[in-house]
Structure formats: C-alpha cells, structure tokens
C-alpha cells in the first residue's frame, strides 16, 4: 500500500470514526458540561412555544430564596430536539452520563419512563417529595395547598404510569381552540361563534358574501384554513366535539374493553364492533364533513405547513378568518406579525349544536335549542353559577330549564382538548439532588410562579389557573379565561389511556382512513357549495348522509376483516 494512499485512508477512517462518535453523542447536551457541584441542580429544557424566560426568572427567585443553603440552578442551552423519543433515549443514557437532574420537556408518557417502558425505570417517583408537599412561594414560605391539590386528580392521572407511580410533573396548561381574526370578522359584522351552527353560519356568510363583501372567490377571504396531511390541529377539534357531546363517556369510549382499574376485559366480537355505533362518533363526523368541506377553505389548505396556514390567518392574501389551532399560536406568530397581534382572538371550540338538541330536543325545536345553547354558553363564559344560569334563562328568554340541563351545557362548554398534559418534566433516576429539584418543582407550582409564567410565556400554569388581566393581548386574556372557568375540564389522549384499545386515537380508530380532516377535505364530494363561491342547492343533509355512509362502510369493513384485525392487533 502506497504511503500517500495509507495516509488518506487513515484520515478518512478518523473522520468516519469522529463522525460516528459525534452522532452517538448527545448525552452532554448544550451549554457546556453539567456541573458536578452537589448544591447546583442541572436543568435541561425544551424551548418550544413558551420560550425559556420563565425558567431564567424562576432560577433567580429560587437561588435568592435558598441563598443561605447555597442552592443554585444551571440551565443548559435549550434544545428543541429534547422531546419524545430523543428525551427517552437521553434519559436511558443514565444520570452518570448526562449529569442532568431535571428535564423540562414534552411527549414522553410516564409509562414510557416507568417499569413497563422499554428501558425500565428512568426517572424518580415524585409523589411524596413534590405532589404531597405544599407549594413554595417566591418568599420561601409554604402555600396552604399541596401541589397535588393545586393540580387536581384529573390531570394527575396523566402524570401517572400504568402501575400507579407518579413520575411526571406537569409544567404548562395549553388548550386547543378556535383562533379568530377579529379584524376580518368585524368587516362582515359577525360575532365570534359559540355553537357549531353559529360557526357554520359565519362560514356560509363569508364564503357566499355578506355585508357588502363579495364571495370568497372574489374577495380572496375564506372562512377557514388548515394544515395539510396528518396534522393534529383538525383532530383536536374533532376530539373536542366528541368530548362535548358526552364528556362523561370520553374515557369509557377510549378505554374500550378496559375496566376502571385498567384491567383488560374480553368483550364479544359484536360488542367490539358496536363501538362504531356510538352517537359521539356520528355527531363528530357530521361536523367534520361540514367543517372540512374543501370548498370553503383557503386555496392551498391541502398542501400547506403550519406557518403557511397561520400566515393566511394573519395576512390578507388568499386568507382566512378562522383556524383550528391552540392558545400557543400567539407565541408562534409574535415575531413576524408584531403589529397584527391585536387582530386575533382565542376562544374554546364552539359547542356542538347537537348538544343543545340532546338536552332540550324533547321540549323545543332545533332553532330554539341552538338559541338556548348559545345563550347559556355566554353565561358559562361569564363564570355564572348554575342557579344564576337557570334564573337568567327564565328571566331573559322566558324558558324553563332544569339545573341538570344547565350543568350539561356548562360541562360541554367547559371541556377542552388539552395539550397541557403532554408538557411534562422528569427528575432523572439516580440524581443525588432529588431534594433540591423537588424544592424547585414545588416553587414552580406556586401562585407567584403562575404570574411569572403568564407574563413571560403568555401561558397558564396548571397549578394556578387565573384569568390574565394584565396582558396587552386580547388573545392571551381570553385564552386564560378558559382554564380559569369554574366548569373547566380537560380531556387528552396523552398517556392516560390503557387497555386493549389503549392506543386508539382518532387517527387509527377508523380502519380505512387514518386522518379524518384530511380525508374529508381531499376526498369528500359532499358539499352545499360550488367552487365559485355560491351555494349549489344541496341542503346540509348531504353532510349528515356522508357521515352516516362513512360509518356504515367503516363498520362493514370492520366486520368483514375482523379476523384480520384480531390477528395483527391482539397483544401478547
């Protein structure tokens, strides 16, 4: 072998080996090496939409309160990739390798890092050291409530693994909902919709033209825009529709074939197939066919990214008035649309009009049901008590309703499809500084911190859901009203679903179509509109028929292929 060839080969090998080592790295993370100081906790955070200003402020307060003890916080360079599988694999490297005491991230469930996960227990159980202790305020004193009491048992279930161990710490509350460009909506003289019928009425007027503004094809302003392909925003809307229809049945539906204790039960084939008869699904599908009718969406909705969709909501070219999104959107558009942030508002998803019919249908016609529904939603949003709602309906509408009726509507309005439970923090297994990390997390559950998070991240702390009255943005103020409402409850598919159908979601429960919004938008021909901005003469029955036919075909496919499903899906 020639010397020059050998030298080149050696160099190439060294490069290859170096490249391989670099690719395998990641344990150390950014921001230099993790300190070995026994009194300094090392925190690694995913920046995401909330930024990290809140963490820097919390660090300052924590270090100030525990100055005598000498406790400090080292924040490693925020890394967007630290989430889901990446986080899981970094946790699996072990504390000795990473030196990180606390990960503040998202997308890894407690079961994944617990005994039943692929790597065994990777994190510390924080039930006793954090959740059963009282929150610590910025002056170092304990608050009156424990962290557990502040979070609530509903959310705590998402922080718990399948064996009942509480591993995760919830660090943000976020809700999916409807983002409205109020500047554009005002031009049409329309109000923000509170029921799905009101929303579709807005869609209809915007698309066909209203208040002196021509139809969408001529004006360039369309009712709605969405993100193409398998994006989750549209699915969040559909989840919310299902939960609104019957929030009490949400868990029962998604934990099908599972007892309350999480044990799997074997139901008959017929019972399994009956899942598709649930009225929750049918009502959701009816709305899906209408909401994702591609005629009323902005051009490009079937082939655009989240940034492009948000640009259409904010901008004025091939633009939209509404978008299914979340309370995180303002942070995402803040940089590029600093001057236009007052144009947008955030509200919970409009309540399924079928809820009104379900509650009042035995006494009133459909139009009156929706009128009552809308009226009660206003009162719920104003945080009125059930008694106040009942009497207001009687006095102002001249209609008699029961407290149960009012509560049913209040629960439907209060339910939110939350992305909050996905925002989890974990204390690394084997850390010698669990006590200090626990103090840090207890301070993170304080009301003081809630104000910090609200001010610096435009978000809501899950431990301190209060209405934000100081934000300069209407969007943030109204978004904060949702979790602060007395009827607020959240549903999520994060980690809490267990049992035979434990991994069922809206993207796999239907066997022939994996993503309902994309399927409807790209393949459905059911429409009451033409492509030129007018109505085509059909009635809304076309959407209902399409939904029914879809479910009939789906059930037929399930029956036809039941043996096949069973052979590929039956768990060990």
């Amino acid at each position, binding site marked *: *072998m020639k010397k020059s060839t*050998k030298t080149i*080969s050696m160099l190439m*090998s060294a490069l*290859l080996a170096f490249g391989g080592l670099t690719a395998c790295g990641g344990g150390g993370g950014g921001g230099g090496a993790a300190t070995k100081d026994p009194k300094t906790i090392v925190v690694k955070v995913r920046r995401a939409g909330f930024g990290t200003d809140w963490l820097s402020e919390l660090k300052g307060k924590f270090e100030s309160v525990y100055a005598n003890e000498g406790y400090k916080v080292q924040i490693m360079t925020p890394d967007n990739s630290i989430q889901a599988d990446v986080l899981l694999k970094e946790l699996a490297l072990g504390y000795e390798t990473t030196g990180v005491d606390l990960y503040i991230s998202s997308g890894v469930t407690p079961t994944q890092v617990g005994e039943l996960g692929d790597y065994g227990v990777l994190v510390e159980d924080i039930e006793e050291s954090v959740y059963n202790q009282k929150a610590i305020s910025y002056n170092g004193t304990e608050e009156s409530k424990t962290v557990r009491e502040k979070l609530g048992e509903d959310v705590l279930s998402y922080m718990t693994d399948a064996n009942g161990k509480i591993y995760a710490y919830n660090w943000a509350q976020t809700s999916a909902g409807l983002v409205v460009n109020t500047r554009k909506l005002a031009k049409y003289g329309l109000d923000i919709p509170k029921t799905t019928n009101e929303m579709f009425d807005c869609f209809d007027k915007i698309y066909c033209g209203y208040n002196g503004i021509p139809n969408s094809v001529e004006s360039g302003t369309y009712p709605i825009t969405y993100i*193409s*392909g*398998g994006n989750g925003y549209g699915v969040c809307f559909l989840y919310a529709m299902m939960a609104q229809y019957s929030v009490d049945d949400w868990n029962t539906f998604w934990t099908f074939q599972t007892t309350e204790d999480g044990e799997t039960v074997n139901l008959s084939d017929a019972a399994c197939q009956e899942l598709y008869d649930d009225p929750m699904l049918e009502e959701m599908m009816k709305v899906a066919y209408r909401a994702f009718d*591609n005629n009323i969406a902005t*051009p*490009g*909705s*079937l*082939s655009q990214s989240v940034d492009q969709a948000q640009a259409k909501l904010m901008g004025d070219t*091939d633009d939209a008035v509404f978008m299914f999104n979340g309370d995180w959107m303002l942070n995402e558009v803040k940089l590029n649309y600093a001057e236009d942030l007052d144009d947008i508002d955030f509200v919970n998803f409009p309540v399924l009009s079928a809820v009104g019919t379900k509650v009042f249908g035995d006494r009133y016609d459909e139009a009156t049901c929706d009128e009552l529904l809308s009226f009660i939603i206003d009162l719920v949003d104003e945080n009125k008590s059930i008694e106040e709602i009942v009497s207001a309906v009687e006095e102002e509408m001249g209609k008699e309703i029961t407290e149960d009726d009012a509560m049913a509507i209040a629960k439907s309005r209060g339910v939110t499809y939350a992305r909050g439970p996905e925002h989890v923090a974990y204390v690394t297994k084997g850390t010698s500084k669990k006590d200090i990390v626990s103090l840090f997390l207890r301070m993170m559950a304080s009301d003081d911190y809630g104000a910090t998070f609200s001010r610096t991240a435009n978000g809501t702390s899950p431990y301190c859901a209060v209405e934000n009255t100081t934000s300069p943005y209407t969007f943030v103020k109204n978004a904060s009203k949702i979790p602060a409402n007395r009827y607020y409850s959240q549903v999520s598919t994060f980690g809490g679903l267990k049992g*035979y*159908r434990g*991994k*069922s979601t809206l*993207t*796999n*429960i239907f*066997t*022939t*179509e*994996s*993503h309902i919004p*994309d399927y409807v938008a*790209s*393949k459905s021909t059911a429409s009451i509109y033409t*492509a030129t901005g007018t109505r085509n003469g059909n009635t809304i029955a076309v959407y209902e028929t399409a939904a029914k036919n879809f479910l009939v075909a789906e059930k037929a*496919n399930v029956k036809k*292929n039941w*043996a*096949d*499903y069973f*052979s*590929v*899906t*039956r*768990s*060990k």
Partner: protein
Amino acid sequence: MKLFDNIKKNYSRLERRDFLFAYLIVLFPVLQFLIFWFYVNISSIGLAFQDATGGLTFKNFEMVWKGFTDKDMLGVNLLDSLGRSFLLWIIGEGVLFPITLITTYVLTKKIAGHYVFRIIYYVPGLMGSIIWTLLIKEMVGYSGPITKLLVGMNVNLPTAVTKNGLLRSEDTAFVTLILVRSVMGVVGNNAVLTGAYTRVPDELFESAELDGAGFFTQMFGIAIPCIWSTICTLLTFALCSVFTCDYNVWLFTDGTGGYGTSTIGFQLYNLTYRLSTGIGSTGYGYPAALGVVLTVMTLPVVLVGKHLLEKASENVEV
C-alpha cells in the same frame, strides 16, 4: 496459532501491518451489513409468519392476497400501487436512462458550455432529497410558478389544481409525479456514467473519426460498448429497485399517498407506520409478508435479467 506462524513466516512485518489495516477498515462495513441488512431481513422474514402473539400463522399472506385481489383490511388496494410503481420504473429505466446515456455522452465530448451544463446536472444530485422535494412541491403548488404558468397559458386545469396545486388532484397528481421523477431521474446516474465515459481511450474515437464515423456512430459503436459493464451494473441495481423506490410520495402528499399517487414502496412504509402506531401496536406481520412476496416476485426477474444483461454484453477490454 499455526496460521499466525505461517503468516509471520510468509509476510514481512510491513505487509502484515498493511493487511491488518485493510482488514480493520473492512470490519466496520461488514458489521454494518450483518446488523442492518442481514439481521433486519432475517427478522422481517420471521415476522411475516408470526401473528401478534408471536405464534406461527399464514394469515399475513392471506391479507397480502386480499390486498392484491380486493382491498386489504385498511382499505388499500395493493395492485393499484404496484401498477404505478411498475409504470414509474418503466419510464425511469426505459426512457430516462437512455436519455441520460446520451446527454452524459454529449457532455463528456466537451461541447461549448459543458462546464455550465455539468454543474446544472450535478446540483440536483448534491441537494438532499427532502430539499429537492420541497422545492418541487412549492413549484407545483397552487401559487407555484408551474401552476401559474399553466394558468397563464390558458390550460384547462381542474378546479382542485387551481385551489390546491397539481399534486392535489386525481387528474394531475400522478402525471405530475411522473414528470417530477423525469426531471430528477435524468440527472440520477450522470456522475457514474461520466466516470465510465472518460475512461474510454481518446485514441479509439480519433481512429473512428479518421474512418469517417460520425458523432452518434462513435457513441453507439464505441462509447456504449466500452461502458457496457457499467450499464449492466446500473440496470441490475435498477431491477432490484422496482418495488422499493417510493419516489418521495410520502413527502409530496404529506403522508397520505392520496390523489392516486401511492406506489408500492410508499404502501410498504405506510402500512408499517399505520399498523405500528395503531390498535395494539404489534402489527408488523402484514407488511413483512408483503415484503417477502415482493422479494419472491423480484428475485427471478433480477436473476434472469442479470443473466441476460451479462449474456448481451461483450467484455470489451480497454
């Protein structure tokens, strides 16, 4: 130990060090091959005969049969996807490859501006496929230059195209995919063929020129026979790739494979993805069985094709 003694006796210290170096440098790819090819393939063959509980079953193959003859349990017709893959392959190897042969030859003859053309040829090859796909996707989007150009030329496009682009209409999506594939395919083997062409001695062309051979006579009579072994290798690889190339359908269609674009390569990925994230998360058997079936279909084609290609070639020593 006797082996080591023999080596010590027959080779000098320097030669032994060279051998050791050579073996160590080969070790890494061999290990890679064993883990990422051998183990993965053996494992997937095993999966094809397993149900979700690990028991022996032929159910997965029944599902593949159903997928080809009717629709599988996920509502997918595999025959449609297979047909599209085959059509794309025919176009790629039957039309585009000969065009590449000619264009690359023309460029190696150093026509005026050949450096510029060569760079234009190479740039797409240097770009990552994701960047390339995103660029194309934007170009054929509803507000992209190609769609705008077609509209400007008064081409009667379906409404779905003017609203969401050429890749979002059943009428135009697959045709667009073919055209996109054509643009990308023409530059595909340029680097390899350029290398092969430049190894053909200039004397052969000079001598042919003196005998009065024209440009294309030189190409078909001298250049192509001289690089025939390279062509055979490329075509053999192409035979293997008929079912595995998905032509970036996942990226072009945001993971849906809709609008009549799904290829069998896309479906293999799509089925694995849907079943792995689906109810129970244990359903790799069906896509594994599909992989085995496609291998069985491809194997005789590759073996016979390779044999014929070798037979057709005359080993030209240059």
